[in-house]
């Protein structure tokens, strides 16, 4: 137990892209494989672990800190599906204070208390809010927290934009011992062009797609029951995909420094794809393609 290496993973992506859904399914799949897992929601929305806990919210680290000056980690760890340790960093009310600092405080609090070691964890998975807008949201990729970063992205330009921003953050910290990129989890990939777009983006930025996760109604149904797909529909095709993804992440060892596009390159890249899609579906631009 003493020298076990804890694998710490951070999952980033644009808001609403499916980070929490994907992360919770990964956590659920990993505990089913017998691993000890903690899922750490780093998003003031505080709903990262809901589907692991029957749709219920838990008191957050920062809520607890608001009431008193010291917080014992044990007060904010709540067990969920299969024994996943669920933590939500929480945050200030919209429009006040500094959510970024909140994330830093919550993460540091855990690090200082050596909670991960005491719980004998195999995995800590951080589910981190949207874009890397400031230093606070970059804290999991800074030295000494996560080692591997994955980003959830669809073929939507805004999602790709956020992913690229994350790559820029990783790039920046990479010389100082920060986390490296494991790859892209391509979510909601159903149309063939969506796969092509994501494949092209990872090629441009010298990374890889870890898994293609289709958009599936099973996910929605499970969520409505307050459950992950792994729990609610363990035998579904979607559950198999999540399990495959979880195992790939468990076995993943070598992350790399991505090569993000600069703003102009990214815009050019997007307009190239827009033209291509137009030509492809002349007159029949789907809503998805229209945002490219």
């Amino acid at each position: 137990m003493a020298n076990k290496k804890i694998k710490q993973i951070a999952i980033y992506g644009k808001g609403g892209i499916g980070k929490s859904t994907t992360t919770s399914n990964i956590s659920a799949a990993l505990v089913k494989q017998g691993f000890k897992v903690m899922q750490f929601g780093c998003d003031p929305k505080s709903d990262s672990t809901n589907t692991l806990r029957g749709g219920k919210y838990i008191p957050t680290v920062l809520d607890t800190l608001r009431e008193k000056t010291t917080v014992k980690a044990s007060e904010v760890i709540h067990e969920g599906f299969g024994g996943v340790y669920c933590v939500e960093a929480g945050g200030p009310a919209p429009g006040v204070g500094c959510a970024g600092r909140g994330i830093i405080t919550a993460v540091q609090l855990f690090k200082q208390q050596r909670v991960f070691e005491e719980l004998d964890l195999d995995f800590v998975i951080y589910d981190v809010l949207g874009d890397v807008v400031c230093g606070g949201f970059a804290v999991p990729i800074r030295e000494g927290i996560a080692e591997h970063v994955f980003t959830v992205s669809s073929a939507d330009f805004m999602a790709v934009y956020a992913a690229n921003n994350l790559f820029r953050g990783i790039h920046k910290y990479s010389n100082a011992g920060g986390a490296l990129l494991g790859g892209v989890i391509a979510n909601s990939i159903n149309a063939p062009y969506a796969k092509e777009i994501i494949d092209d983006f990872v090629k441009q930025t010298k990374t890889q797609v870890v898994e293609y996760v289709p958009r599936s109604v099973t996910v929605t149904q499970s969520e409505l029951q307050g459950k992950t797909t792994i729990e609610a529909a363990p035998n579904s095709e979607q559950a198999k995909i999540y399990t495959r993804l979880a195992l790939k992440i468990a076995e993943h060892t070598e992350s790399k420094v991505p090569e993000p596009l600069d703003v102009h390159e990214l815009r050019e890249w997007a307009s190239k794809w827009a033209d291509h899609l137009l030509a492809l579906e002349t007159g029949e631009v789907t809503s998805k393609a229209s945002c490219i």
Partner: protein
Amino acid sequence: MIKILDQPRYVCALGAMQTVQGIYRGVPVLHAGPGCAGKLAAGIAGNNGDSGYISPQIYPCSNVTEKEIIFGGEERLAETIENALRVVDGDIFVVLSGCTAEIVGDDIAKVSSRFANMEKPVVYVETAGFKGNNLEGHEWVINAIIEQYLAKKPVKEKVKGLVNIWGPVPSYDPFWVGNIRELEKLLIEIGLTPNAIFGEYRGIENIDKIPQAEFNLLVSPWVGLKNVKLLEEKFQTPYLHYPTLPIGAFETGKFLRTVGKYAGVDVEVVEAVIERHEKEYYYHIERTSDVFLENRTMSRRFSTVTNATDALAISKFLVNDFGLVPEKQYITDDTPEEYRDSIEKYFTEFEYGIEAKVTFSKDAYRIHEEIRNCDYFGPPLIIGSIFEKKLTKELSGNFLAVSVPIKERLILHSSYVGYHGGLRLLEDIYTYVLKQFN
């Protein structure tokens, strides 16, 4: 590129808390981290203005820490203002914000405005350190009082001969009380009625009179320009900008003539005052000229390392009254870019066609290197702050600390302004020179 600033002589905008303290019964209420006030006071107030009825150690402060950063500190500030009003018996409360509160976006305007209808005026100023220095902060404090307090009061009639005095910055100018008092006396002598808000027993009563002045008199190269301009806009009060703090006979005479003319004072009245003072002044110069002329421990060349006000005032005195030769003058107050050209020009307007080079620098390392490499044709005179003491020793020169940080002398009400001020400055300079003989 990272640069280390060696021995800066100004502090952040929150240092303008001293301006509030300079207003008798004015109470600064800080929305800042623990330590800001103490550190800033050590930086500029030091042993002159660090204690009293209200002082940096006891300013009401919200003590913003991690909790307020994350969740916002507005409620904490509201509590602090509320309790300050309850506990501290003051006449005007000025809320000043520091870096942390402003970084997280606390709306101090909104919080302060909740106290708009209290018995005592509550105004606010955003003085986060990253926004500017303490001199800019000083201007912001005064502008806040003008806009949020004075401009809301009913208009009163102008009073003939009433003149607001602006220029010396409380605490940051260690001689601020004395300097303001001297300026007041000079105005009184030519028949005007001075109105200054800083120092003993002036306070809110004098603040209330500001809009009634016939004109505003700003005696400083740049600090305060924003205030007199705002006063012109709000109350149609014209202003006279006299950039040089007058020290000694030459400049004080010029000052009195300029102010007298602007105010429409009878020339004879002004000339009579000047004559009387000059008679006394030159009597002392004359009877001491041996000391000035016959010593081998001071060359005729000098540099000042100080804020724009003192650099200009002292070099004008040493050149015009005393015939010394200016080497480079170093201005260390982080003067805003917009004023630098006009300030440089002031240094080309000495008597006898003499001009001085000026360097604006915040970095004592560079300044000191330049001074070391300058030929002063003998032991120089260096006038600055305590930071120049060691340097001057190294050069076997003569030294006088006049601007913060001073640390080695106590200044209560003395001043270098006016005729007596000029004599006082000579006493101080030559006391050092004479000690060299021992």
